[in-house]
């Protein structure tokens, strides 16, 4: 409850949350808000600037940009959430095992994480998509795998320090099994940094997926996806900058929102981790 109070008094975090809620509403209510089909082409109305009938104008195929952005929100949020879910599903167990048991398990898991890190996230995602083929599913898998090493390292280091805590030793002394200690005592206390990081990772994943789309290796046309829209609009950058401007604003706002929310959650849930101001002296 104290956390909620701190969160409530954190204006940037509330702004972030507000943007995310707005995006969610737009994503779900897109068919109610817009009279257009996101993929309906109307070549007679191609590349129009913003107007009363097309709020954000039309693209090179005469599709309504505002409608495509709203439907694109579904794709981007889906990728962001599912990619982070993959990252957590794979990364949390690996990190717990490495941090709790140490020794060879730690050695193996840490080298695996190092390896994925050495690939760097964009290279890993690009290569995976190139090998697996371009599709929404493969983009989610590729981005998800690139989230894994970050989560592994984070969970490992929190578990490593929690393992030595008196309450863990007490549980062990009482004869609790490893599984019980991990689930009840260690994991529960490692949850805060994981939650904060997962929030930030949603933004990073959306950014990465949009980057793949921009390079033409993400979700493929005609599906409306922000990065793909930006990439395709690029050739009209001089004559019709609004084709790239609006998708760019959407990507920027989404990432900004998750960054603000993540910062706010960190300050609210764990003031010790805070980078915010502290009284000095």
């Amino acid at each position, binding site marked *: 409850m104290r956390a909620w109070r701190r969160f409530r008094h954190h204006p*940037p975090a509330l702004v972030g949350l507000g943007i995310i809620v707005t995006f969610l509403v737009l994503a779900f209510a897109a068919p109610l808000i817009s009279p257009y089909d996101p993929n309906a082409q109307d070549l007679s109305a191609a590349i129009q600037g913003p107007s009363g009938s097309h709020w954000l104008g039309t693209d090179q195929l005469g599709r309504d940009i505002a409608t495509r952005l709203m439907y694109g929100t579904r794709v981007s949020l889906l990728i962001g959430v599912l990619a982070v879910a993959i990252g957590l599903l794979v990364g949390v167990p690996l990190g717990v095992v490495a941090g709790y048991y140490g020794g060879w398990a730690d050695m193996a898991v840490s*080298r*695996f994480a*190092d*390896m994925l*890190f*050495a*690939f*760097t*996230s*964009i*290279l890993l995602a*690009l*290569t*995976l998509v*190139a*090998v*697996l083929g371009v599709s929404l599913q493969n983009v989610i898998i590729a981005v998800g795998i690139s989230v894994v090493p970050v989560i592994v390292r984070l969970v490992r280091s929190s578990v490593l320090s929690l393992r030595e805590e008196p309450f863990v030793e007490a549980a062990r002394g009482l004869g609790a099994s490893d599984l019980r200690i991990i689930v009840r005592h260690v994991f529960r206390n490692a949850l805060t940094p994981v939650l904060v990081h997962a929030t930030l990772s949603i*933004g990073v994943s959306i*950014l990465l997926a*949009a*980057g793949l789309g*921009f*390079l*033409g*290796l993400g979700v493929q046309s005609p599906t409306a996806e922000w*990065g793909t829209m*930006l990439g395709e609009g*690029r050739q009209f*950058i*001089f004559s019709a*900058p609004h084709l*790239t401007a609006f998708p*760019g604003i959407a*990507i*920027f706002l989404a*990432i*900004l929102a998750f*960054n*603000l929310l993540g910062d706010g959650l960190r300050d609210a849930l764990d003031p010790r981790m805070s*980078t915010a*101001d*502290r009284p*000095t*002296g």
Partner: protein
Amino acid sequence: MKGTAAHIVRTLLLSLVTLFGVSVLIFLMLRVLPGDPARVLAGLDASAEQVDRIRAELGLDEPLLSQYWAFISGVLQGDLGVSARTSRPVALEIFARMPATLTLAVVATVIGSVVGVAAGVVAAVRRNSVVDHVISSVAMMGVSMPVYWLGLLLILLFAVTLGWLPAAGSDEPLSIVLPAATLGAFSTALVSRMTRASMLEVLGQDFIRTAQAKGAPPRTVIIRHGLRNAFIPILTVISLQFGALLGGAVLTETVFGWPGIGRLLVDSIAARDFAVVQGLVLVYALLFVLLNVFVDVLYVVVDPRIRY
């Protein structure tokens, strides 16, 4: 010092393990995943003859282990295979593009370090002032900005509207300004956030108050007592950011038509020239691992308190 040397040797050994892992991973990714690796490595436009030749060259009917052995012993001798697109050795292709990317990453890192540290220090010293709020807000926007979009915006403003700088290519000396600024923007924002946080931490310490009480001039207190002690986390971010920049260069180079290895990677993936992709992944991993070793050594040099 003995402990330090042992630690560095250990780091080097672990790096070798990591590199070995990456080589296995990329090897398996291109061979075990669905599809005919000979066809994949030869490129989609290759004739049946070429595909057969590659299959024979790679010894694809042999067990995976001996295939890997042939692959890795080639790599260790600097043989990364032949590009399907240009028929030139992959090592040569990469080597030719490397200086462009390194130049871009170095300039972007310098921008990020200088501007980022300066902005972070000012924000920390003037905590909660208007200046601090402006710097912190701009930094927040900076870390949320898609690099390719920022690039396009900068092209629109400085190349198209104002006509001050070239929009793309690398023919003129000024060509590097926009790509480097684009690539450096994220680092600048990240470094300034880190610097601010780290400085706030240090400026709250007792020795800072002691220095102030002694009557040391504010500049001395901030730079010599503050920044010097806040520098380790900043340095970590800057060094690791350099690695991220090499990766981020993939997008920046595409936007600006900068002839580096990032664009080579995108072009090779588009052309399904997997020999080049494989080589690039190895080279990137090598750079990344070397960078981490460098950071490790740097810690010891910069902070005499750190001994392993």
